[in-house]
């Protein structure tokens, strides 16, 4: 299900620390969840804090990796996102 006007229903941003181990794991895990559960109905922005730490500080992001879910409900999850159940709950999926 997508929003009226064709905008995706789920919008997320992932703050990572370059190619560090946990950051790579977090990136892979969220992509897997998106592919399995969200199909094409999402947007995901990846932000490397080594390259752009100002945005992270503006968002009050202290640690990397951190996933910020903007829609459907703002949620912040820190770590390598290996707990899929936690992510799905945050996304409001059963």
């Amino acid at each position: 299900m997508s929003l009226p006007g064709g905008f995706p229903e789920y919008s997320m941003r992932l703050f990572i620390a370059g190619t560090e181990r946990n950051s790579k794991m977090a990136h892979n895990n969220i992509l897997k969840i998106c592919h399995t559960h969200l199909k094409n109905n999402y947007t995901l922005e990846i932000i490397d804090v080594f390259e752009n730490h100002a945005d992270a500080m503006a968002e009050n992001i202290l640690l990397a990796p951190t996933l910020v879910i903007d829609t459907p409900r703002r949620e912040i999850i820190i770590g390598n996102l290996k707990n899929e159940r936690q992510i799905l709950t945050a996304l409001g999926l059963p």
Partner: protein
Amino acid sequence: MKPENPTYQDLENQLARARSILTAIEQGQVDAIVGDERHMQLLVLKQTIDMIRENERNFRALADANLIGIGFSDSSGNVTYINDEMLRMTGYSRADVLSGRIKWETFLAPENRPELGKGSERLANQEMVSVRKWEFLRPDGGRTPVLGAASRITSPEGLQVIIALDLTQLRQAETHKWKSDQRLRIAADALDIGVFEWNLTKNTAFWENDQMYRIFGRSRKQPALVYSDFLEQAVDIRDKKAFAHAFSKVLQPGNVFNFACRIHRPGKNILAWIEITGKFYRNDSDLSLCMIGVAKDISKQKEQEHAIKKIKNLLEERVRERTAKIQSQKERLRVLANKIGQVEQKERNRLAAVLHDHIQPLVVGARMHLWDIHRKNDIDEAHKTAHKVESILEETLAELRSLTVDLSPSAILNDGLDGGVNWLVTYMKKKFGFTLKPEVDDTIDPIAENTCFLLFQCTKELLLNVVKHSGENHATVSISRTHDQKIKIIVSDNGNGFEPETFEENQNNTTSLGLFSIEERLKDIGGRMMIASAPGQGTTITLTAPAGETEEAVTPVDSGNNRRADDKPVISFRNPDDIIGILIVDDHKLLREGLTGLLKMEPDFAVLGEAADADTAIELAKKLAPDVVIMDVNLGEPNGMEATRQILSDNPHIKVIALSMHSDKKVINAMYHAGASAYLNKTVPSDELITKVRSCLSDG
């Protein structure tokens, strides 16, 4: 962004977030703390520590894997840690190591220790001791060959690390390889083969043994020939293309190449045959294509093959010639068989003509005269007619004798080959007006009867050929005995002659067939015929044949009662008034009756009896005790000779006169040998028989 007036819920949320942050940090899920430059430096430091830890983990894993021996020591060289592999190589226990009293020198063989001393100095200066071969001396006295290196780790403690790789297996492998190479060389030398290796990618060559250099006529100082040089410099131009083609066809790893070719050895430019056999493979280290192979000098083998091929061709040629000759002889024999059939028929016709035209009219004439005697009453007339009959019968006998001589000349039976040739002289003169000049050695006798007869026949046939084809009316015949006991007859004329080669070709020609027949018959008794002739230059034909085994001549017993029929009359000591009792033995009734009639006419003769066979004769001789037995030779079995022997054995006083149609020398001799007093031919006049009956008794 913090709310200015946080609600309880806000605080709860912040707390939950702080907890989740702490949990993530505790679980090591955080890679970075987002902050300013200082934070970033901390981040780099953390990354460095992580890297060191990672390296340490890898290093420990390497040490624990025990693939190589690893050990650590302090700056004084006291060993502080070694892994299991290093323990195994050194032969020490972990307790020994942990005691802290063992230095690196302890492990090393004495000869390696000075080197380690130098190494320690270098280690102190933070240099790495390069990789070298050492030997560890184990407490049990054994040694472990190793490849070792040492380095000082950059640390305040001056930690040193030593690594070692066990070379025992490598050494064993090297020893094994060396032995294998040795065995290969010995085997190659024993087989007299050269062993080589070509690297076709790098265009290099390696010749393994001396034999390889010998095969190619090169010295050890000269470089081994790479493939391209081998093809260009060694291989003969005739085989170059085929060699390159065969080589390129199998140029794949795993394929086998085999080729025999001619090569030139340098210097003397000697051509030799070699056989190359090799297998292509891919070099493990650089994946280049190589071939390892052997070369064998097969020059001698090729020479033998060539010689065998020549012999084979020669034999095949001989077999072809011989087959053709046999075919030719077969054809001649076929034609000869036909000719013989025709000649036989012709001879039969001739005999029939003689019997019909000459003998039969005489016999008929005699019979008619006999009828005439029956009809005549006048005794004088009867006597005259009887004389006519006698003269007709004599003429008949003469004709029959002539016929017999034609068929088988008695001359040869009586006087051998010499007599036969003399007969031929007369025969040729009488029949063809042909002059034959004989030259006969005295040494030719004895000759086996078969050989004698065959040579006579062949000579006669050759002379008939001369009459027919030479255009001459004279020829010579010479007979001699060779040193190897062969009889040689040369028949020679100065006539037309012929080309001897045509003798082979003209199979159906009468002369050729005649000669062929003579040649074949001579071969049958181990003899041969040679022809020397040319057109217009006469012909000389030489016959040779082994004289053969002769039966010992049977000579008459030269006793008083064994005088020949033609002996001179002897003085009689017998009373002429005595009556001579006679027994007549002959299987022909008419002859017995005729003889009885004849002998009865003599006043002093008394025919005591007649016998038709030997047994009756023996019986009657015993019973009647005759003075004379007139004995036929051909009585069937037992024959006249046997009967004579038996009669004389029973009564030696009886005189036996043999009376036969035979004029065979052997038969005559045999009768004399049996004890006959005389031998008379049935054709002799009656007076001669009567005289002989009387004279044999007078002979005592």
